[in-house]
């Protein structure tokens, strides 16, 4: 496996009208690790992650995915990059007209030559991986918030991508379901060896799953490093952000229990 970062942000600026959201963000996302970007709500975390797959284009700067600059990539280059990615959206972004399993099988229909039976088998395998066995035929309207996230996650990994992006995987979930999602992400990282990029405002969740943490604040990445480096940051804003989480665990690495 190459040591070169899989994703590289170089001086990325993005504004919406007069609102400047990203003000020169530069950092590297290493291959095969879980990188979490945290920050208060409304600081542009989702905007940042959407640049990686070309859903948004920067006003200036570069977003390199290996040797493709997504800021200036052609449509065909973007398509090729997107095939290497999976993404879990905040609300799951499941298609309401399909069942849970059909949602998971959906990318297989358009990117593989699998028969319907093979697609179903693959989707059921991924549903089992996210601890939702037997839910293939359940309508999405009958899924709970946590189940929707897990079905979204199963869909994100069904093509076995190199990188999975998570946009607020814990938002809107109760603490127990949130812990379940964290454990699932940690287990999948160990089992699948993919690169994970997680956008969250939940510091506890972040410490549970991340190898590296960056903090986005006022359009800039004010801190970025390993979990220990992050917990011992000299940045006042980082320390304030951490202080607000009184139940923070000790800075001794990820909290995922061994399998």
């Amino acid at each position, binding site marked *: 496996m190459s040591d070169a970062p899989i994703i590289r942000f170089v001086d990325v600026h993005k504004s919406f009208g007069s609102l400047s959201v990203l003000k020169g963000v530069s950092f590297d996302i290493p291959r095969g690790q879980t990188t979490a970007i945290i920050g208060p709500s409304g600081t542009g975390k989702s905007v940042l992650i959407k640049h990686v797959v070309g*859903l948004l284009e920067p006003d200036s700067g570069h977003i390199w995915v290996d040797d493709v600059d997504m800021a200036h990539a052609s449509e065909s280059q973007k398509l090729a990059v*997107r095939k290497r*990615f*999976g*993404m879990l959206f905040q*609300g799951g*972004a499941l298609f309401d007209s399909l069942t849970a399993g059909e949602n998971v099988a959906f990318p297989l229909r358009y990117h593989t030559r699998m028969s319907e039976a093979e697609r179903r088998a693959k989707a059921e395998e991924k549903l089992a991986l996210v601890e939702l066995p037997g839910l293939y035929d359940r309508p999405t309207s009958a899924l709970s918030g946590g189940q929707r996230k897990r079905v979204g996650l199963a869909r994100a990994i069904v093509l076995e991508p190199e990188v999975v*992006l998570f946009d607020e995987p814990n938002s809107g979930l109760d603490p127990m379901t949130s812990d379940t999602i964290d454990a699932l992400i940690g287990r999948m990282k160990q089992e699948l060896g993919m690169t994970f990029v997680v956008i969250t405002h939940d510091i506890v969740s972040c410490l549970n799953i991340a190898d590296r943490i960056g903090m986005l604040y006022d359009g800039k990445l004010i801190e970025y490093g390993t979990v220990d480096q992050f917990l011992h940051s000299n940045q006042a804003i980082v320390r304030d952000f951490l202080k607000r989480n009184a139940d923070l665990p000790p800075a001794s690495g990820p909290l995922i229990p061994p399998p």
Partner: protein
Amino acid sequence: MNALAEFGRFGLFVATFARASATHPPPVRRSIEEAYRIGVLSLPILLIISAFVGTNLALQGYNAFAPLGGQRLVGMFVALAGVRELAPMMVASMVAAKAGTEMASQIAVMRIREQIDALEVMAINPHWFLITPRFIGILLVLPPLTVISIFTLTVSSYLVSTLQLGLNGAEFLAYFTDTTEPMDLVYCMIKAFFFGIIICLVSCFYGFNSKSGPNGVGEATNASVVVSAVSCALLNYLMSEILFSGRGL
């Protein structure tokens, strides 16, 4: 200035859709499903409205011509006003109100729930996936719906003319057929074809560009039906001028 910018965005949207459709295989099964759905959605209301427009055309034609002793001209009036003008516009309005608003609201909801973003991340072109089947579907059904509307409108006006107003049926039909010819039906279907293009592209455009929240969906739906109806009315005038100008009665 805003309208010009909006028109520019619409042009880009249409170009993106055209390129997506040209570079992907046509989604045959989903297009047929859409055609069936649009047709079934719009047919009941269309039959009812067409029937009553026909009845009223007969009544108003009679009111206008009878004092002058020209009640026999009701058939001609129905042919000119009903067949050439009202039926295609009525079909366009009904389809814009039923199927067009459904397209706009469905796509707007998909936009705000990030389902369109999800399609893009899954490397599935959303313009091809969401618009192409609706586009083919509406083009398949709008011309036949127009023919059905013309037939319904003509039958209802004939029935009112003969059974209620006491006009001679043979005379009604003679004036009707003298005024229309088979090409009129073809021209009406051509009108319907272009109305279908407008309704689909306008509705999908507003759905794709919906702002977030329930208000955004409402605004997109409202804008889709208003802009579709006004555009179809304008196009109807231009096409009538081109297709029927100089043909007389």
